[in-house]
């Protein structure tokens, strides 16, 4: 695996005298991962990314990217990183193609002899070849987002930092971006993907970190995080009152009745495992509860988030 591609130690940013936007962040992104950086709007994701890219100076702590300190090694490190930061930004008076030529010209490690070919390849990769000659001001939000992605793909990169890459895209566009991310990761590029969309992270990421109000709540593999939250049992029955009583006797907590559906949190078992749902089903039937449907629900990242923060996934105040 090698050393982490992104590593921060106590990374902190305070604007003015207010509450820190990011506080004591210890992030570790393994090489080759698709790393989901998850949190509600305003939880400090973009501030973190700006510090990683050397756009803003940390108040305290530091970051290493690809094994080198940032922002000290920016000139060596940044050419190996493609980034989409807080949405695309384009020159409206230039064509899509001219926008990419300009961003490529800004990179002193980009070979001017291959520039035109690389720009064409990047445009094709994001499906913008047909609109390359149009002025960017005439682009839709989705097209701008694609052009921003193309700018990040002008060179082969070791790390891609994509801040909310599917913003403004329709479901088809989102699918394409997810496909692109998987494809890039398969080539060996580490992808750091920030999002406030839980299911987006769940669908593509191998690892994830959860931010809330400027602090890192947890990080690890997506499978590991989901395992941290207990699954829920769901029973559909006309005899809800009896079902609740029986399930409570068997140690289920947080029982909720909605219509003819009863759900509850499975208790931790005595020897580390959860009670066998088959036993619960048998107990219900023995007690005369008529069961229409029975099953366990896999915990989602949203459950994880709610369990970790004790609050909903809303904009931080």
């Amino acid at each position, binding site marked *: 695996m090698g050393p982490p591609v992104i590593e921060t130690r106590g990374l902190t940013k305070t604007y003015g005298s207010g509450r820190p936007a990011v506080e004591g962040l210890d992030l570790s992104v393994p090489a080759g991962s698709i790393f989901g950086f998850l949190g509600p709007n305003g939880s400090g994701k973009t501030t973190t990314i*700006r510090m990683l*890219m*050397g*756009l*803003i*100076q940390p108040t305290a702590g530091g970051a290493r990217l690809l094994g080198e300190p940032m922002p000290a090694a*920016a*000139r060596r490190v*940044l*050419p*190996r*990183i493609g*980034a989409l*930061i*807080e*949405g695309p*930004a*384009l*020159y*409206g*008076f*230039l064509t899509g193609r*001219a926008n990419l*030529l*300009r*961003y*490529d*010209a*800004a*990179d*002193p*490690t*980009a*070979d*001017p*002899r*291959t*520039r035109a*070919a*690389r720009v064409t390849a990047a445009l094709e990769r994001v499906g913008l070849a047909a609109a390359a000659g149009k002025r960017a001001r005439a682009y839709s939000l989705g097209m701008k987002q694609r052009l*921003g992605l193309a*700018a990040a793909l002008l*060179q*082969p*990169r*070791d790390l891609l930092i994509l801040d909310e890459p599917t913003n403004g895209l329709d479901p088809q566009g989102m699918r394409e971006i997810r496909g692109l991310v998987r494809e890039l990761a398969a*080539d*060996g590029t580490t992808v750091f993907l920030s999002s406030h969309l839980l299911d987006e992270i769940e669908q593509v990421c191998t690892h994830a970190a959860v931010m809330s109000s400027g602090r890192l709540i947890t990080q690890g593999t997506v499978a590991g995080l989901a395992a941290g939250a207990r699954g829920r049992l769901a029973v559909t029955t006309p005899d809800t009152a009896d079902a609740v009583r029986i399930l409570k006797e068997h140690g289920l907590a947080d029982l909720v009745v909605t219509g003819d559906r009863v759900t509850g949190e499975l208790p931790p078992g005595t020897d580390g495992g959860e009670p066998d749902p088959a036993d619960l089903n048998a107990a219900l039937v023995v007690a005369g509860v008529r069961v229409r449907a029975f099953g366990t629900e896999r915990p989602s990242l949203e459950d994880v988030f709610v369990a970790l923060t004790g609050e909903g996934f809303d904009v931080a105040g």
Partner: protein
Amino acid sequence: MSRADTRADTQADGELGVSGDRAPRPLWSLGLLRNELGTTFRRRRTLMLLAVLACVPVLVGIAVRVQTADGGGRGGPAFISLVTNNGLFLVFTSLAATLPVFLPMALAVVAGDAIAGEAGAGTLRYLLVAPAGRTRLLLVKYAAALAFSLAATLVVAASALIVGVLLFPLGEVTLLSGTAVPFTEGLLRALAVAGMVALSLTGVAALGLFVSTLTGSGIAAMATTVGLVLTAQILDALPQLAAVQPYLFPHYWLSFADLLRDPVYWDDIRSNLGLQAVYVLLFGSAAWARFTTRDITA
């Protein structure tokens, strides 16, 4: 490197390189300057500014022609009475007419927008992570502003020369000191005057660039720079402020006329260039100090 190597093999074109072994090349660093010049001079706004500047000599030329047909022709801007004898003087008249306000205002648009406009549009963050490098970007922006100053000056001079040739007689040029020189030498002196006018604008360009690093709004930076230019001109005209006037950047601007003497009178020209150098150093350093430490949050 093993991962980088395998990726090099997957590239259709081996020349595309691999991110692991890329290094900045000094010559490739110039790509941004070339792109900036191309972007600046292809931009419609720049072309409009140059077009407006090109109209000034046309208006001055026609006005002089109409006025002399009426039998008048006294007063007005510098050299204007000389234009009727020699069309070449329209170059000097036009530069004297545009240097105090029109040229610095046009430059204020380009220099003021340089960093602030990129910040406002958000393109600044993408240039910086490319990575353009903050010092390099600032130098490129300053170079583009200077290139615009030179282009604007040459556009005024060329337009004036064409109008002068069309509307007025040409011939030997009588210098301000009374000596007559051949037309070709007059042309050379006109070129030198244009160069001097462009150099006179280097201070404003640095001032505009500094203002541009202070804000994230291109419009605010342009307006502030234009305001500073006009304020300096007004202060330079108030007799009560004679003590501070030698330190105002426009104070020696019209010294370019001294190039039209024989021998050339260098004192004020030297003062002008020295003063511009001080402004460039002062505001250039301030812009650098500000821009290289600033948090880019736009």
